[in-house]
């Protein structure tokens, strides 16, 4: 075999390799998509064959039609929930991060307040939501607080773990370099905690939407939660399904945003 020939063979092998890689990628995307399509088909025909009334279980095609027809209403109710979720996400996580930092630097504060944090976390969000609506009124604030509260605990626990995840040798190195506590915090502890923080933020990205919707159930006339209650009581099942779809779309959107941010920031 000449050099050119062997180079040709190598190139061919590389192309084959790439083709195989692409096929593998397509498979990982196509398999779940096909499953979803199949389940939707089962649903569509199941509802038609067994003649299930539309107000009990609408067919996917009905939901799709409603989604398109009622899109302005859906969007109108989407934005309030979006704001409540995002504001709650920011408030809850910021509070959790700051408290985690205090816990790590002051054991007494941790001993004093950690049990309270655990206690608050054990109260079902559905039980505490009416209390918060009573305190903050039926406006935006109550929903933001509920959304924030639901984000708070996972982030607190993960952030504390993250800030403590620094290896002993890194701390010894810092000591040999005569680093101050502030330097250790900014240059070692905080970056170390980021992978842990992002795991928590990914949980929070979906739970904050749950918090906002639960808040709207208790008292609101706008928002996806209000729309869910409204369409349930009026037997507008297609609209109910479309709203549920919209809510999960919001969660997925926030999750994707956090995941992209994670990929850009945590590159190690």
């Amino acid at each position, binding site marked *: 075999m000449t050099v050119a020939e062997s180079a040709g063979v190598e190139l061919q092998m590389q192309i084959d390799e790439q083709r195989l890689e692409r096929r593998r990628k397509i498979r990982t995307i196509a398999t779940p998509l096909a499953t979803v399509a199949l389940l939707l088909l089962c649903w569509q025909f199941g509802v038609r064959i067994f003649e299930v009334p539309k107000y009990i279980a609408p067919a996917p095609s009905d939901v799709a039609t409603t989604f398109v027809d009622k899109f302005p209403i859906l969007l109108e109710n989407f934005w309030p929930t979006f704001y409540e979720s995002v504001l709650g996400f920011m408030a809850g996580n910021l509070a959790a991060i700051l408290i985690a930092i205090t816990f790590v630097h002051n054991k007494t504060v941790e001993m004093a307040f950690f049990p309270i944090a655990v206690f608050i976390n054990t109260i079902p969000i559905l039980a505490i939501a009416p209390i918060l609506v009573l305190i903050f009124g039926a406006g935006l604030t109550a929903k933001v607080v509920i959304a924030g509260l639901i984000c708070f605990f996972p982030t607190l626990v993960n952030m504390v773990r993250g800030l403590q995840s620094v*290896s002993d*040798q*890194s701390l*010894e*190195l*810092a*000591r*040999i*370099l*005569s*680093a*101050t506590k*502030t*330097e250790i915090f900014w*240059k*070692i502890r905080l*970056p170390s905690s*980021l992978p842990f923080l992002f795991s928590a933020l990914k949980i929070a990205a979906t739970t904050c939407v749950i918090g906002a919707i639960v808040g709207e159930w208790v008292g609101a006339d706008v928002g996806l939660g209000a729309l869910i209650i409204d369409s349930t009581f009026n037997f507008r099942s297609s609209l109910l399904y479309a709203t549920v779809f919209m809510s999960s779309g919001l969660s997925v959107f926030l999750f994707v945003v956090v995941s992209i941010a994670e990929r850009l920031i*945590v*590159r*190690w």
Partner: protein
Amino acid sequence: MDTAHAHETFATGSVPVAASLRNAFVKFGAFTAIENLSLDVEKGSFYTILGPSGCGKSTLLRLISDLVPAASGDVSILGKSTEEARLAREFAFVFQDAALLPWRTALQNVELPLEMGRKRGVKIPVSDKSPTELLELVGLKGREHALPHELSGGMRQRVAIARALVCKPKLLLMDEPFGALDEMTRDRLNLQLLQIWEETGVTILFVTHSIPEAVFLGQKVLMLQAHPGRLREVVDINLPYPREIKIRDTQEFTQYASYLRELLETC
């Protein structure tokens, strides 16, 4: 004398001393990690430290580097207390695992010591070599912007060595730096370390578990014994530098190694 070739001509009498311990004790509660240790480390020398586990090898380095306090006795580095020496960046430490910050590139890891300690009054000494040049010195040219997870174990340890050299320390404390590496990588790094030692004239204290490594690198081997940690014997290794890997096949080398092995068994 600061030049590297002073290594072979050991002067007797008043040699400049890099580190000096006088009747030093280290205690952790009721446990005595180091008992009554006295030692002078000549400037520019290369000492290796051997001993069974629990003999206080690592504690000795941590005592010198001001990480653990002496319960009694004196420790001085170039005539300064350990704290003064730490603030003057007289020594640097290389850990068993490289202890690199995973979010920093190789270059940024080497630069870390330049960014820390100012607020505590450290006057950061400037090395005559830039961080980039130091990475070149340890054979990592072209990998400056790689993150630690993109580097092999040996490369990570080289970055750690470059980081240790960035403040131009007079004393380099190494705690089993090559212990987790495979044999070939270890050999290569041993040779490179000797080269760096010759070029920079830095004093090195090197803890190891490996008898061949201790003999291959050191001018002297300090044998410590356990329970409590004590200096058992200082063995001079009279093999010429520069040393090559094949020196290990010589009879003298084997004699040193077997002598140390027998000594270690009684420690």
